[in-house]
């Protein structure tokens, strides 16, 4: 279960006249196993920020984020790294990779990090790339030259190759055509059935309605 308790986030910008930007205050909600919670609210309400706070990429100003029994605010960097390896996955909107690394290697990295044998990892990588309809002739090329949609699918492949019990998705279906959207939504549903607790941002209402168990609107909270 993921628990968000009285979560506040603000940014102090010291080099810009000490401006203080308040993103949100007192966010409270829970996500159970097998649930997909969709974050809604207009641009700037802090949806991506919330995901980043849970993932540990942003510092929590006030409040708590609990993933199972782990308190993110009280965790050391090492604890969070361990969590990200084995239990907490994150699919962002951007594909950030080392240049010139082939797509297949990008995708299997999470498996190699947890000690999966390379042959097995490669098989799984091929499976998921096939599923996401990435053509075989692209597997040995760096994804940095791919189209937006292809890059997004590589990102998805990397995020879903391992069954994370907790998954954060930031616009997983943006830049995808309908066919590919459905494939990704299938993956999300499968993860849901597997018992993962998922928080996602979906701008596409239809996509949202298809997979979300419920919605949390950050503007209202």
């Amino acid at each position: 279960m993921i628990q968000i308790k009285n979560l506040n986030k603000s940014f102090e910008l010291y080099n810009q006249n000490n401006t203080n930007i308040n993103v949100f205050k007192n966010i409270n909600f829970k996500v159970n196993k097998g649930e997909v919670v969709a974050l809604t609210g207009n641009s700037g309400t802090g949806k991506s920020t919330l995901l980043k706070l849970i993932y540990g990429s942003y510092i929590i100003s006030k409040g708590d984020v609990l993933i199972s029994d782990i308190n993110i605010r009280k965790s050391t960097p090492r604890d969070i790294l361990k969590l990200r390896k084995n239990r907490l996955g994150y699919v962002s909107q951007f594909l950030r990779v080392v240049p010139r690394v082939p797509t297949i290697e990008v995708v299997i990295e999470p498996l190699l990090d947890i000690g999966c044998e390379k042959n097995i990892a490669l098989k799984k990588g091929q499976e998921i790339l096939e599923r996401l309809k990435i053509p075989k002739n692209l597997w040995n090329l760096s994804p940095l030259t791919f189209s937006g949609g292809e890059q997004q699918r590589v990102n998805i492949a990397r995020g879903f190759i391992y069954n994370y019990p907790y998954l954060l998705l930031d616009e997983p279906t943006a830049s995808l055509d309908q066919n590919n959207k459905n494939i990704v939504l299938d993956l999300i549903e499968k993860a849901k059935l597997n018992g993962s607790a998922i928080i996602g941002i979906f701008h596409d209402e239809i996509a949202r309605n298809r997979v979300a168990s419920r919605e949390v609107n950050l503007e209202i909270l």
Partner: protein
Amino acid sequence: MKQDFLFKASNISKYYGQNIGCKNVSLDINSGEVLGIVGESGSGKSTLLNCIYGNLEVDEGDIFLNDKSKTILNFTKISEPKLRLIQRSDLAFVHQNPRDGLRMNISAGGNIGERLMAIGHRNYGEIREIASNWLEKVEIDVSRIDDKPSTFSGGMQQRLQIARNLVTKPRLIFMDEPTGGLDVSVQAKILDLLRNLVRELGIAAIIVTHDLAVVRLLADRIIVMQNGNVVEAGLCDQVLDDPQHKYSQLLVSSVLQV
């Protein structure tokens, strides 16, 4: 003291007369981790690196290494011969300029083989085979094994330096601007090589760099230095995405986006 760390530096200070090289810096690292030390020129990061490697004498502080037999060694207290032996076998130091870390008038094979010969390898055929394997690993054509590094490109020299250092399977590698001075396409190759080696060999790496893009791709955790002090430390993506300290914010916001 807890035994489960690989390497730890506590309250390291180094002064140059009145000037601070570094002050009160603490860090620690375990196997399979990559720690980045970032800062601008003059921040003290290279001084710090050389201090914790044992090249420079510290004025204050301790440096601990958990050696292979699970004994904790204090660099500031062990004898020079012992320190030099550890530096040659258990640690590695990759210099920014490969010429500082290679013997330019010795062949590539000889450069890689030197550490092996220093620890007692006496079979020419074996040494040559190990050297060839490493050349392959760092993607240098094996046919160049008898060529001198002075005939190599900068990227090749840097990769040779890495091979030379890793041949004795050190558990901790120190790198001073490993990709500085290299063409960007070459940098990418080396970054990938380093990441794979860290994962495959389980080694730990401490990398000093002023290039935030490099540190983002390589490091798990980073420390930010300014004028010899650590101003911020934490998860790499957290420090780069949500810097809390004024100087870190300045540093991050100054990076040009491509």
